[in-house]
């Protein structure tokens, strides 16, 4: 038993010691193996029975264990299901794992958390794990006609392994027919006693669904009776790709998960790899990372701000805000060379040191943006029509938010001051002074207001980075730092060989499991990495904030009007790449 965590004793007191096996991971929280038959009882106890409960289902995913070489002393199965729970009262996580064989069924957790719905569909879609009692166990990311389960180790990862692709007319028709929306399948009726409903396809190409996202709406006039979101159009198999890339060459893929977040995506990944490898990075690296991540938070929030205003019909703000975002990109470009996807963080450091003159650029921007933000307050936030469109629209409370796995500004808008930068400081955030803006009503307006204030707080953080940038190396002196420091490579053969291997094969990360979650632009983004002692990850699980946020849409839109839905979508602030991965 793991004595570091009181929850382990509490579990044993409740259920006896027999059913539990405690796995040692590199995380700061317990991983507990449970028998499949007892898992739901344990989960239910953790959610509502235990003192200071684990109220949020933070993540739920699976692992295909069949090709694993380094297996810890835990129950052996073909697949593992991992439930990642979060307790706000304890400020602690717990991971509940269940071993399954290829033929075994798992009882569905949708009765405990509504948020489990999409996660279980994803696990079924990707691994073929069946959940007994799930209301709509069907594909969620892959097309309905897909054969096989992509994240299984025996499913090909490259198109070249799958034979040439053809699309004859008959197949094209069949594929299109498979996308047709059948209301009956979702328990909807085509008419009520008094009226016939109209079913409206919003998306996958629609101006205000922010990417390729489809919502099937059941309408009574312009009032939304029910909605069924349909995702997966932006699915690129980022988790599958990780299994064929090296630890180092996977970094560029992370940039493209939340494509407005830039290096913010690198951060949880490299932090998790560093945790597995045991790398401590120098202070200068931490501060550079924080500065760039906060600049990208500003850039992402500016896009949100402009498109939110555009969604409620204001044409101009988006131009102003994109212009400001260019200023951020000017700095990013000077430092990294890239703009939206700089791929700048490295395992154990950053790619290069800051260029000469970076401080001037940053200082100029810090003076430039605040007056602009004040102006936008008048243009957008104080506008009566904007208020009318967003206040009291798309409301949810803290309880609901936790139930559905909402993090980030969506959670803070309900009045809960939960920010991972403050609650679980990473990368040196504990050294910075900043406030956590919160809302009150949890409506579209508050979500917007929270983000606007967050930009000001990010500016504060960037200013502190500017004024206190520590001197020192931009890479950790560690054998697994990639690419390694090069000073001595031409002087002794050992360093040269180590460098050569690190650059050509990539680093070999010691076997183990680690999770790191950060406060990303749109909520909490977390990477769970499993290393099997190879140059490539065995499994990369990307927990993105937008995925659970979108799952809430039917709840928020029932009874609202079509324009309200547009405001709700805007205020959630999602990008489809972040949802589908």
């Amino acid at each position: 038993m793991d004595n570091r965590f009181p929850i382990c004793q509490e579990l044993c007191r409740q259920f006896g010691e027999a059913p539990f096996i405690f796995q040692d991971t590199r995380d700061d929280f317990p991983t507990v193996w449970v028998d499949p038959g007892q898992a739901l009882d344990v989960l239910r106890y953790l959610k509502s029975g235990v003192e200071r409960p684990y109220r949020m289902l933070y993540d739920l995913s699976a692992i295909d264990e069949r090709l694993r070489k380094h297996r810890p002393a835990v129950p052996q199965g073909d697949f593992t299901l991992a439930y990642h729970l979060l307790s706000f009262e304890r400020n602690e996580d717990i991971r509940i794992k269940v071993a399954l064989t290829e033929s075994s069924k798992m009882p569905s957790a949708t009765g405990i958390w509504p948020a489990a719905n999409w996660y279980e569909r994803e696990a079924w879609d990707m691994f073929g794990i069946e959940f007994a009692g799930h209301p709509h166990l069907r594909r969620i990311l892959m097309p309905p006609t897909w054969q096989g389960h992509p994240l299984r180790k025996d499913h090909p990862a490259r198109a070249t392994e799958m034979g040439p692709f053809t699309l004859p007319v008959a197949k094209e028709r069949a594929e299109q027919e498979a996308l047709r929306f059948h209301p009956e399948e979702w328990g909807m009726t085509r008419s009520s006693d008094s009226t016939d409903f109209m079913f409206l396809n919003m998306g996958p190409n629609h101006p205000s669904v922010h990417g390729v996202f489809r919502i099937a709406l059941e309408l009574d006039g312009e009032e939304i009776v029910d909605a069924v979101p349909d995702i997966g159009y932006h699915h690129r198999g980022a988790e599958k790709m990780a299994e064929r890339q090296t630890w180092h060459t996977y970094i560029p893929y992370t940039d493209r998960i939340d494509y407005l977040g830039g290096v913010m995506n690198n951060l949880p990944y490299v932090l998790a790899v560093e945790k597995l490898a045991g790398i401590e990075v120098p202070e200068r690296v931490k501060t550079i990372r924080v500065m760039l991540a906060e600049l990208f938070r500003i850039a992402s929030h500016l896009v949100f701000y402009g498109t939110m205003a555009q969604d409620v019909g204001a044409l101009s703000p988006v131009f102003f805000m994109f212009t400001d975002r260019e200023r951020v990109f000017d700095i990013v470009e000077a430092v990294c060379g890239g703009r939206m996807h700089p791929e700048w963080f490295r395992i154990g450091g950053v790619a290069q040191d800051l260029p000469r003159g970076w401080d001037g650029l940053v200082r100029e921007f810090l003076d430039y943006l605040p007056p602009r933000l004040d102006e936008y307050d008048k243009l957008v936030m104080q506008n009566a029509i904007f208020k009318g469109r967003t206040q009291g629209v798309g409301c949810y409370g803290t309880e609901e938010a936790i139930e559905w796995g909402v993090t980030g500004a969506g959670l803070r808008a309900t009045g809960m001051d939960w920010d991972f930068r403050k609650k679980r400081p990473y990368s040196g955030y504990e050294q910075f002074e900043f406030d956590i803006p919160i809302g009150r009503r949890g409506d579209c307006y508050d979500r917007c207001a929270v983000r606007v204030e967050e930009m000001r707080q990010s500016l504060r953080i960037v200013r502190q980075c500017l004024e206190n940038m520590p001197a020192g190396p931009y890479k950790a002196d560690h054998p697994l730092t990639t690419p390694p420091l090069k000073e001595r490579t031409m002087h002794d053969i050992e360093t040269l060989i180590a460098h050569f291997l690190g650059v050509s094969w990539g680093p070999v990360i010691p076997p183990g499991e680690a999770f790191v979650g950060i406060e990303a632009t749109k909520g909490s983004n977390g990477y769970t990495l499993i290393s099997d002692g190879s140059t490539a990850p065995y499994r990369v699980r990307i927990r993105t904030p937008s995925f659970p946020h979108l799952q809430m849409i039917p709840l928020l839109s029932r009874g609202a009007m079509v324009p309200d839905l547009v405001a709700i979508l805007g205020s959630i602030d999602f990008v489809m790449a972040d949802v589908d991965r």
Partner: protein
Amino acid sequence: MSESAHAWLNIAGILFAVLALSALLIWLERRLIGLWQDRYGPNRVGPFGLLQVVADMIKIFAKEDWVPPFADKAVFVLAPAVIVLVTLMAFAVVPIAPGIGVADMNIGLLFFLAMSSLSVYSVVLAGWASNNKYALLGGMRAAAQMLSYEVFMGLSLMGIVMLAGSFNLREVVESQRDGWYVVPQFIGFVVFVIAGIAETRRLPFDLPEAEAELVAGFHTEYSGLKFGLFFVGEYIGLILISAMIVTLFFGGWLGDGLPPLAWFCLKTFAFICFFILLRAALPRPRYDQLMDYGWKAMLPLVLLNLAVTGAVVLAGRMPP
């Protein structure tokens, strides 16, 4: 010059001027909005990008004239013609300057109101005939919005009719020699401007179109020249409303120092720019908020205005 030649010259001249202006407005709007949005707008084709309009026109004329197979063909084709036709008809009664203007009718104001009401048919029919759900929603919004705003539009002008004692637009202008009606009829002016934007379906009252919600609303299925007609119809409507505001509230062609025609054009131009600025500055209210605003705020306001104006006029006529 014979009288009929004069009339024909007037008709041809005004028709040409209005059509040319509405085309030019496309360029003007894009440049002005560009200016207000920190960007250039079209500035490549010809001097200041002026020939952009010509290029756009060539493009629109060259587009395939396509009718969706699921549409109601006859109505689908008719709808865009209606809007251009009725807005141009309404122009007939606008008194541009002494001696310039197509028709001088005793019921000019009523004719204008009637014609501008008819334009709603264009939008509703387009939405209905497209046989597209987004277009249908747009058409329904248009019907509700334009019918309700029609009511205040008419009522907001009755104060002027009382003051001028006539429906004849030339007499309305002449009676403003002592002072523009915008002062005594300020409430009427505000309501008329708001109703006017609603009539022309421009932001913040572009709900039938609402591209963030309804893709392109009632003209989702339209392309090529038919789409172009809706476009031109909107701009003619914009000129018409600006011209009517000037005629009714700002003394029409009256003014010192410049020829009457110049005064009229200058004032109208100012209002056109104002409408374009509105589009750059405001978000869009929700459909039900728009209706609430109309029936619960505008209607009482305009009725109050009517009652007060009536009382004042009556008091002025009473023998001392």
